[in-house]
């Protein structure tokens, strides 16, 4: 999983511009599945057929989003500095004085206007300096509508912990790949739809249309979740290293309780480390799936992560592996 994560964080994939990561994932998933395609919003959908006879197979949708937060260029100033707007929930204070990379490989640094108090740093108070001497030179490299993101990076810490960005939600994608690898030679009885969704960070858009196209019987979403174990964190029991986090609630939904309890029982029976999660603020693709069509029974397995949406997020790969193991155990129940 570590090597896959290294590959996945090395490619930019800002909401609406996910093609590079989608292509990488398609190459990885194609040998593991029976059918792979992109839908109208760009979500990558990979289908692994089940073993039960026609008409007796359920459709199971497993979803993780492949987009990340970033910036879009709105203007190039006369002096060559570049103005941007956020795509997704950017913490500008955390992003300040950091390197960014554009789609065409141009590098730059994100800088707050001098004299701006840390709490006042926002989209209209920052610019990107690419070292251009004037507008003319800058426009050779960057034009309106181009997108960029903080640089991807990944480092190993104690045990199986890793830090870097964007772990949200490349780790969910890595979990889906892990599940597909485990099912490669021993498929379960139901049809499994692995969905790598687009545009989650701007409002769970890709998962919604993907779910409509598939109309699954059951769905599970895989995403990072906040934790209560950092200094100054809010009251939340979920912790890094505490195992797969079975979601009960976040700002966007209340999960199906029977489904969550079933997953907990299977984890217990198979000795897979798990914990329950109630996310204090933030939404996930789970909700988009839940409210599709006449409604879909959903659960979410989260990977506990510290410092989400900052320039460096931290998680434990053992928790991600537990999410994959628990899913495979559930599919084979």
């Amino acid at each position, binding site marked *: 999983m570590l090597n896959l994560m290294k590959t996945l964080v090395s490619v930019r994939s800002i*909401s*609406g*511009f996910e093609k590079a990561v989608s292509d990488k994932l398609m190459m990885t998933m194609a040998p593991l599945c029976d059918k792979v395609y992109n*839908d*109208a*919003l760009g*979500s990558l959908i990979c289908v692994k057929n089940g073993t039960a006879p026609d008409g007796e197979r359920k459709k199971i949708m497993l979803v993780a989003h492949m987009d990340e937060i970033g910036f*879009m260029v*709105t*203007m190039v*100033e006369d002096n060559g500095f570049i*103005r941007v*707007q*956020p*795509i997704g929930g950017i913490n500008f204070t955390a992003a300040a004085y950091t390197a960014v990379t554009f789609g065409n490989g141009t590098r730059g640094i994100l800088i707050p206007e001098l004299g701006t108090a840390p709490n006042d740093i926002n989209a*209209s108070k920052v610019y990107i300096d690419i070292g251009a001497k004037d507008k003319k030179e800058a426009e050779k490299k960057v034009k*309106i*509508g181009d997108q960029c993101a903080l640089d991807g990076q990944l480092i190993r810490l104690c045990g199986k912990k890793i830090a870097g960005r964007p772990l949200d939600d490349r780790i969910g994608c890595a979990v889906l790949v892990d599940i597909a690898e485990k099912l490669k030679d021993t498929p379960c009885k139901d049809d499994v739809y692995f969905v790598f969704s687009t*545009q989650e960070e*701007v409002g769970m*858009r*890709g998962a*919604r*249309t*993907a779910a*409509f*196209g598939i109309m699954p019987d059951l769905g599970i979403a895989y995403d990072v979740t906040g934790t209560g174990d950092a200094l100054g964190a809010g009251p939340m029991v979920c912790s890094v290293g505490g195992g797969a986090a079975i979601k009960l609630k976040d700002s966007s939904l209340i999960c199906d309780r029977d489904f969550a309890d079933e997953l907990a029982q299977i984890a217990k029976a198979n000795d897979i480390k798990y914990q329950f999660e109630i996310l204090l603020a933030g939404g996930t693709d789970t909700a988009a799936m839940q409210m599709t069509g006449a409604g879909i029974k959903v659960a979410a397995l989260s990977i506990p992560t510290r410092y989400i949406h900052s320039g460096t997020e931290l998680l434990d790969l053992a928790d991600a592996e537990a999410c994959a193991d628990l899913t495979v155990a559930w599919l084979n129940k």
Partner: protein
Amino acid sequence: MTKGIELIKRLSLAFGPSGWEDDVRAVIREEIGKAADSITEDRVGNLIVRVKGRGLDYNASKPARMMIAAHMDEVGFMVKDVTDEGYLKFSPIGGMDPRVLCGRHVMIHTDKGTEVPAMIATKAIHLQSAEDRAKATPTKKMYFDIGARTKEEGFKAVSVGDCGVFDSDFMTFGKDGAFLKGKALDDRLGCAALIEAIRDLHDSPCDLPFDVYFCFTCNEEIGISGAGVAAFTVEPDMALLVEACAVNDLPGVPGASRVASLGGGCVLTLVDSTALYDQSLTAFLRHTAEDQGVRYQIKQGTGDVTDGGFIQRSMAGVKTALLSVPVRYTHSAASVARYADYESARDLLIAALRNWKA
């Protein structure tokens, strides 16, 4: 006035606050006449006009579908009560800055079928305290003056639930009359572009690889998007929204905050609050504009609420792009646009349909 400006004028003057689009629908039906293959109205009031495709790339047994949408409704007001002194209390329909309301004329269309002129009352400057002058009066504290002297007299003229819109002349101004002023340019400019495209396809037919569904939609200004419903009715393979884009090209506004400029041509939007638009469709529009010599500009801002997201995320998703006409002072009685920008949006729409390759 050219034919195009006459059409915009007629649409601008039509009465159509969100939910009460009857007059606009009637004008559009009349203007299209027999130029389309069919005109239908769906259950929420969207007018859906079909132009059939033909030619080698047209699959007659299972035709592809292209949706082109513009909204008919405009911002307006709803009467909610009459005071003892005969003044009307009202609620805005759609988002308006209270500062553009004071002293304006409104025309109320009653459920009895009458028209009642109303003035939005404001305290004369002589009578304002220093505190009054320093802040904008909120809509809640405003009222309509219809010349009624008592509650009874007021209720004889209007009922709770009657709606009004700005009563505002349409005119051209500036050098050579290049600028247009009127109410409801958002999005009657879009409606006009669709009507002209329908006429153009009728007058000089071409091979269209799909059926085109021109959708004149309702309820955009109050955020419940008739266009989203129309998308489920039409089930398009692709969609193009034609809108008015609120621009801020005013003195003292720094470049990055101007959004787009009047005179810069039609506006292509990459992202707004509702959607990240399809890159391949947008790139096709850019290339078409460049090939045909149509002026266009890329929108600088990422805000604005449109029907785009509702269409894009209907069903299993629809590839959607947004083309718009830049408009100053939108959602006021005196919205201002340049006719040449409208022409570039109309021409790009027609050129895109005639040269479809995406």
